[in-house]
């Protein structure tokens, strides 16, 4: 007669999965809150260059985006492989920028117009020519605050020389 009963071996108790939905919901809420839906569908290739002296661009409602890059592969047959400008959801010309800026300004409250910033999202393979043309257009309509949107990283690392 032993004082200690041997525990029954075998049949492990099942792990309770009752709290699994709670954990998943927690993650779900995090991602729901952190998600920003893309405003525009990108029609151009857009891999931004890197820089490390960056400033954050907050107040998203006061930013106008201009995308520049080669058309993506399914548009290349129609628009070629030269870098193009995309405004909102359409390909555009340099001449359309003035109208685009005016339309953006008209859609904002008047007292906010001086704080509007233009964010230039330019593909790192693009040439300076098109960027300069855009800058000249922006100067013509007096939209002087610009931001060269970049990735955060070492600016010199990606350069091929």
């Amino acid at each position, binding site marked *: 007669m032993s004082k200690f009963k041997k525990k029954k071996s075998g049949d492990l108790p099942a792990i309770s999965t009752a709290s699994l939905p709670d954990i998943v919901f927690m993650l779900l809420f995090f991602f729901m809150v952190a998600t920003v839906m893309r405003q525009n569908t990108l029609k151009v290739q857009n891999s931004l260059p890197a820089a490390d002296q960056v*400033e954050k661009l907050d107040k998203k409602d006061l930013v106008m985006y201009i995308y520049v890059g080669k058309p993506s592969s399914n548009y290349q047959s129609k628009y070629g492989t030269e870098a193009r400008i995309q405004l909102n959801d359409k390909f555009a010309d340099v001449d359309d920028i003035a109208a685009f800026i005016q339309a953006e300004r008209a859609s904002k409250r008047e007292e906010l117009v001086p704080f509007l910033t233009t964010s230039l999202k330019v593909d790192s393979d693009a040439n300076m020519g098109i960027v300069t043309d855009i800058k000249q257009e922006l100067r013509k309509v007096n939209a*002087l605050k610009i931001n060269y949107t970049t990735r955060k990283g070492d600016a010199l690392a990606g350069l091929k020389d």
Partner: protein
Amino acid sequence: MAKRSAPEVNAGSMADIAFLLLIFFLVTTTIETDSGLSRKLPPMEEQEEDVIIKEKNIFQINVNRNNELLLKTGGEEKLLNIKDLRAEAVKFLDNGGGTGEDACKRCKGNKNPKSSDNFQKAVVSLQSDRATKYDTYIAVQNEVIAAYNQLRNREFKRDFPGEDMSFVEAEKRYNDPRTSSSEKDKLKEKLEKIKLLIPQKFSEAEPKKSN
């Protein structure tokens, strides 16, 4: 009829539904990368009067169509590797070669009389070709801003050692919406002082047509 207890709803598939939603949001999420180099374009007008700047106060960077840099400053020209640009720019801005009323008390450079007089007089000029790659241009801009930030950090630490942060950190704190407005007012004054002391005089020539 006797009271019947309601049958319990099976919650076993709740996890599956939650997973489905979770995966949807995981896939659609793009953590936005909206940060970059902020610049201000010069206005279109006021181009009639030409400002005369002494040649020694200009740090001229030319970027050609093959993404090579040519630096013209202090009466000499040389090809420059972009890795050396930051050090060269700091050397130029910090030179302090001025005498008399142009003397620079804060500059710690080697006071070369052929290079810039003081922080206020020094101008960085950038000229790029139409065929220059955009990433090279951004790298040059980045290095020039870095040179200014380096000097501003130094002077900020010198003037306000009690703050225990650099100029860049102070500016970040100033732009942070969580900072209280009383602290913002204090920071603004200090930031303005440093910005006046070391202004970013950056001029961009319109690019040449490449043939």
